[in-house]
């Protein structure tokens, strides 16, 4: 095909968008809406996943060191713990510190309660793990160490966290997939309708001797342009809303929130993912989808 011909077909695609304003508007609207829904669901899911991961990582294995091991020796064993595969960090708590902990805990019950019993408290380690799914295995490895008296894993919290994490991972991404599928159905229905409304025009072109490629190219250009516009719009709206929500949460000034902020994903890290994702998908769905649904009207 000559270059001039190609230029004509591309221009034709754009001219059609103006001539079929209702369809252009409908196409952009539907695509943008679907991108919004799916994009927001994905971002939500990613963030909740990160927050839950963060909370889960706070879950600890508490180790009591045998009474006959002195603080200096016990602190040295930290190297062994940190060398274990799934261990994130191991915080040492000396005998004296452990005593203070309990004393604090019981301070409500009156002064003098704990006098003279400081020698009975063992040293401890608070161990955080990398992957909470393998906390039981890590626990077993720690218990095998000869200087360890016993270990505690809060099973309730572990299972809560695991349940929430799994719910978020499967549920959240499941929702994203369902929304994506629904979006594709809605989008392809819309495209088929817009092409359907112009089926006569398509068939006339065939009768005048136009090849399938010649007819399809302007539709392809048109669909791709609609897709790009929708992608840009969706990126703008998603990023705008995300930024506002992010800033709102940050403005709430709350200890708990502050610790959450670290797990929330800042806009700077994801805006280009959103942009590339929606715009590429827009081009693909719009361009290929349209060119494809023209096909069934070409058989004349």
């Amino acid at each position: 095909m000559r270059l001039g011909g190609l230029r004509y077909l591309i221009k034709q695609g754009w001219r059609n968008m103006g001539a079929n304003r209702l369809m252009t508007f409908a196409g952009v609207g539907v695509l943008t809406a679907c991108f919004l829904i799916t994009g927001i669901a994905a971002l939500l899911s990613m963030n909740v996943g990160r927050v839950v991961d963060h909370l889960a990582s706070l879950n600890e294995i508490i180790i009591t060191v045998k009474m006959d091991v002195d603080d200096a020796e016990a602190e040295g064993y930290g190297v062994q713990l940190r060398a274990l595969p799934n261990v994130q960090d191991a915080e040492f708590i000396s005998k004296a510190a452990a005593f203070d902990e309990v004393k604090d805990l019981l301070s409500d019950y009156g002064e003098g309660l704990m006098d003279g019993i400081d020698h009975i408290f063992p040293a401890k380690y608070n161990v955080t793990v990398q992957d909470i799914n393998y906390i039981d295995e890590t626990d077993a490895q720690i218990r095998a160490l000869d200087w360890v008296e016993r270990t505690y894993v809060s099973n309730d919290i572990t299972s809560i966290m695991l349940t929430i994490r799994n719910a978020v991972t499967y549920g959240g991404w499941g929702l994203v997939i369902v929304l994506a599928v629904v979006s594709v159905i809605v989008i392809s229905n819309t495209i088929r309708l817009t092409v359907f409304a112009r089926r006569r025009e398509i068939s006339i072109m065939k009768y005048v001797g136009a090849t399938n490629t010649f007819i399809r190219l302007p539709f392809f250009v048109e669909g791709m342009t609609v897709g790009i516009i929708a992608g840009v719009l969706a990126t703008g709206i998603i990023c705008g809303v995300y930024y506002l929500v992010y800033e709102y949460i940050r403005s709430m000034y709350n200890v708990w929130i502050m610790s959450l902020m670290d797990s929330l994903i800042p806009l700077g890290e994801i805006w280009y993912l959103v942009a590339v994702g929606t715009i590429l998908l827009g081009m693909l769905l719009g361009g290929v989808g349209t060119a494809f649904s023209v096909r069934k009207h070409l058989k004349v």
Partner: protein
Amino acid sequence: MAKKPIIADSSVMISLTKVKKVYPGGHTALDNVNLEIRRGEFVFVLGHSGAGKSTFLKLILREEVATSGRVVVGGRDLSRIRQRDIPYLRRGLGVVFQDFRLIPSMTAFENVAFAMRVTNIAEREIKKRVPYVLNLVGLAGKARNYPAELSGGEQQRVALARALVHSPPIIIADEPTGNIDPELSVEIMELLKAINMVGTTVVVVTHEHDLAQRFSERIITIDHGAVVADDQTKGGGAF
């Protein structure tokens, strides 16, 4: 890329052998039609409403496929032609459709230009040729109007301009004067005759006996799906 039109320069341009066309629903529109149209002929097809005239043209265009029998256009057997060669066949046929078939979203100019664009002709060429052809059919002033803004006769003439624009070897016209007054009809037929004089094969479907008598060298009459008369060397007296 620019493939040549499929119409070969054979001496028999259109040939139908034992052609039968039964529409879904069971109506037999054509039955056992045998016909040969040679290069450079000017043929009129006459017949009552519903006789099968448009069906005959649709078979030549491969808009419909014959139920049985052979339709050969420009040396090409249309029952064997590949789907993707059909556009190239149609580029060799300038057609005026009975229902005009103008693209409603394009101006008169664009509708005509489109038929040139599909054959990949340079824009400069199109800018010269289209106004010339529109002028030939008397529509110089209506180039920028959309079909919905044209009168019936004007739409018909846009369709005629489109058929003429790329000087195809065969021109087929279904009732090209059905919406046009007698004076203009004669002008249009004279235009077609002139085009025929330089070697173009012309097939015109009409129900206007007078016009046929006046301009034709050959009148084929179809009745109830069968060719009932094929009168050679009749008329032609206008020239």
